[in-house]
C-alpha cells in the first residue's frame, strides 16, 4: 500500500516536472519571439546594406557608426534627427503633465465632493471612456484648421486634459489611498481646497501618478494618428512620422540606414521600459481589473 502510494506520488512529481519543463519551454519560446525581431533590427543596424541583402546574421557587425553617420547626413538634408526627437519629447512631456494633473484633479472632484450631479459626472466619464478619438477626427481636423491651429502642437497637447481612462484609474486608487478625514483635517487647519489638493492629495497619490505618467508618456510618444493628420510642415514632424518618412524613396536604397533609424526610435522606450517594467506591469494589472 505504502509502496503504491509512493509510486503514485512519484508519478505525480514526474508529471509536475514534465508540465514545468513544457511550460517553461513555451514561455521561453514566446520571450524569444518577442525579442527576435528587435535583435535582427539591432544586428542589421550594424551591417552594411550589401551584407543585409546577402543573408541573415544574428551576430552584430561593426558598421553601426557608418550607418549612423549616413542617417544623420540624410536627415540633415532637410530636418535634423534630433529635431524630431525634441518635437516628440515636447508634446509627450506636456501632455503627460496635463493628463496626469487634470485627471487626478477630476477624480478628486468626483471623489471628495458630493455635489449635485457628481454621480452623473462620474457616469458620464465612464461612458465616454469608450469613445475613441478616431470617430470624430474629421470634425476635429476641420475645427482645428478653422481655429488656425492646424500645424500646431496645441491640438496634440490640450486634449490630453480630458483623459477618461486616467481619471478612472485615479479614482480607483484614490478611494483606497485618500481617506476623506485627511481632507477634513486639512480644512480644519485652514487649508484652502486647491491647496489641500496640491499639497496633500497629490503627494498621497504619488504611486498612481507615477504609473499614469509612464502610460501617458508612452501613449503620447507612440501617437501617430493625430500628429500625422494635423502636422503638415516637416519641421514639426514627430518621431513616428519620421519612421513613416524612412519608408520613402530617400531611404529605401540603403537598408542599414533604415535599421539604424528604427533602433534610434525604439531605444529610448526600450531603456525606459526595462528600468520601469515592474511598475508598468503592475499598472497594467491594476488598470485591467476594472470592477
Amino acid at each position: 500500500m505504502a509502496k503504491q502510494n509512493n509510486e503514485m506520488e512519484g508519478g505525480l512529481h514526474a508529471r509536475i516536472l514534465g508540465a514545468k519543463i513544457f511550460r517553461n519551454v513555451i514561455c521561453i519560446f514566446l520571450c524569444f519571439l518577442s525579442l527576435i525581431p528587435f535583435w535582427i533590427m539591432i544586428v542589421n543596424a550594424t551591417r552594411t546594406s550589401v551584407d543585409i541583402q546577402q543573408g541573415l546574421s544574428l551576430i552584430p557587425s561593426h558598421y553601426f557608426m557608418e550607418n549612423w553617420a549616413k542617417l544623420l547626413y540624410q536627415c540633415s538634408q532637410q530636418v535634423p534627427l534630433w529635431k524630431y526627437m525634441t518635437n516628440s519629447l515636447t508634446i509627450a512631456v506636456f501632455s503627460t503633465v496635463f493628463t496626469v494633473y487634470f485627471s487626478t484633479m477630476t477624480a478628486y472632484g468626483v471623489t471628495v465632493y458630493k455635489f449635485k450631479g457628481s454621480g452623473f459626472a462620474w457616469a458620464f466619464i465612464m461612458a465616454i471612456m469608450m469613445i475613441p478619438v478616431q470617430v470624430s477626427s474629421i470634425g476635429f481636423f476641420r475645427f482645428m484648421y478653422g481655429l488656425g491651429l492646424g500645424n500646431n502642437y496645441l491640438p496634440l497637447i490640450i486634449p490630453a486634459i480630458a483623459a477618461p481612462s486616467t481619471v478612472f484609474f485615479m479614482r480607483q486608487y484614490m478611494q483606497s489611498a485618500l481617506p476623506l478625514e485627511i481632507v477634513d483635517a486639512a480644512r480644519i487647519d485652514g487649508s484652502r481646497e486647491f491647496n489641500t489638493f496640491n499639497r496633500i492629495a497629490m503627494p498621497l497619490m504619488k504611486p498612481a501618478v507615477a504609473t499614469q505618467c509612464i502610460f501617458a508618456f508612452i501613449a503620447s510618444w507612440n501617437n501617430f494618428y493625430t500628429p500625422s493628420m494635423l502636422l503638415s510642415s516637416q519641421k514639426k514632424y514627430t518621431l513616428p512620422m519620421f519612421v513613416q518618412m524612412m519608408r520613402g524613396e530617400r531611404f529605401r536604397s540603403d537598408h542599414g540606414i533604415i535599421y539604424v533609424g528604427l533602433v534610434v526610435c525604439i531605444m529610448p522606450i526600450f531603456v525606459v521600459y526595462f528600468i520601469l517594467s515592474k511598475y508598468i506591469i503592475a499598472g497594467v494589472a491594476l488598470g485591467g481589473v476594472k470592477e
Partner: protein
Amino acid sequence: MLDGTAAQIFERVPNTENCQMPVARPRAEIFREGCEKMANTKTKRKTVEYSRYGYFFIAPFFIVFAIFQLWPLIYTMGLAFCENYTDTMFNMEVGPYFNGLANFKTVFVGNDGRLFNTYTFQSLWNTIIMWLMNFLPQILLALILAVWFTDTRVKLKAQGAYKILTFMPNIITAATISVLFYKLFDFPNGPINQVLTSWGVLSQPYNFFLSKWATRGIVSFINFWMWYGNTMIVLTAGVLGISPSLFEAARVDGASSWQIFKSVTLPMLRPIMLFTLVNSAIGGLQMYDIPKLLTTSGYGDPDYTTRTMTMYIRDLAFTGSKQMGKAAAASLILFVVTLFFSLVLFYIMRDKDAIKEKKAIKAAQKARKGAK
C-alpha cells in the same frame, strides 16, 4: 436643472434635518457664514458647504472634453449630412451644403445598386477580419498563460521575466514595429525570406505583400504579438482576484485541473474577459498605424484588402477630392459600431452588481427558509 438655477445648485442651505429645499441666497452671505463656521465650529455640516468646489475640480475636464471631443463629434455628425469636397480641377472647396442622406446613400449602396457593396463596408469588413484573426489566438494564449502563471502546483519561477518580455512589444511605437516588419518581410531579400529559403521551406522568395491573406496575416500577427502580453497580465490579475477558497474547495472535492479551470476559473473570469473583448474590439476597430505603414503604398495593399475603416476615412478626407462629407458619414458608421460595443460593455458592467445583489438576497431568503 440647467435652466438658470445654477445658484440653487451651488448655494444650498446646509443640510439640517429635513431641509432639502434649495433656497437661493446671496453668495457673499454664504461665504461669510462659511468663514465664520470655519473659524468657530467643528460640526460635520460644513463639508456640505464645500461641495461646490467639486465643480471647479471637474470643470477643466469637461470644458476640454466639450471643445476638443464633443464639438468635433457633433461637427462630424453635421458634416455627414452635407456635401463637402474639394474640386480638384479648380482646387476649390465645395460646400458644406446640406444634402440630406446623400452621403449615407453612397456609403451604404454600391455603384451596382447592391446594399453594403461599398468601399466603406469592405474596409469595415477588413477591419473586423483582421481584428478577429488577432483576438481569438490572443485571448486563448493569454488565458493559457494566465492559468499557468497562477498555478500553485506547477510554479513557474521565471514568470516575472516572462511577463516583462512578452509584454514588451506592447509599449513600442506601433508605427516603428510596422516598419520593422515591413523590412523583415521584405521581398526578395528580407530576413524572413532569407530564412525560409535557406531552410528549404520556400523554393524561392515569396512576396508576402502581394497576397491578401499573407498581408492580413502579418497585420493580425503584429497585433497579436503586441497585445497578448497585455491581455495575459490583465487575466492573470483577474485569476489572482478570484477567492482562493473557491479553488481549495474544488480541490478538496477532488476536481481535476481541467474541471477547476472549466467550472471555477472560467466563469469567475467572465466579466474581465468580456471587458477585454470589448476593449479589444473597440481598439481593433480603430486600427490604423500598423496596416497603414506595413504595405508599400500605404493604402491597404493588395487591392485595398488590408485597408481598415480609419484608413479609408482618412483616404476619403485627405486625398484626391477630399470628400469630407462622405468621410464624416463613414465616421458615423464607425461611431455607431463602436458605440454598440461600448453599450454592450456598459450594460454588462452595470447589471452585474444588481443581479448579484438580487441573487444574494434570494440566497439569503432561501437559507432563512431552510433554517426554519
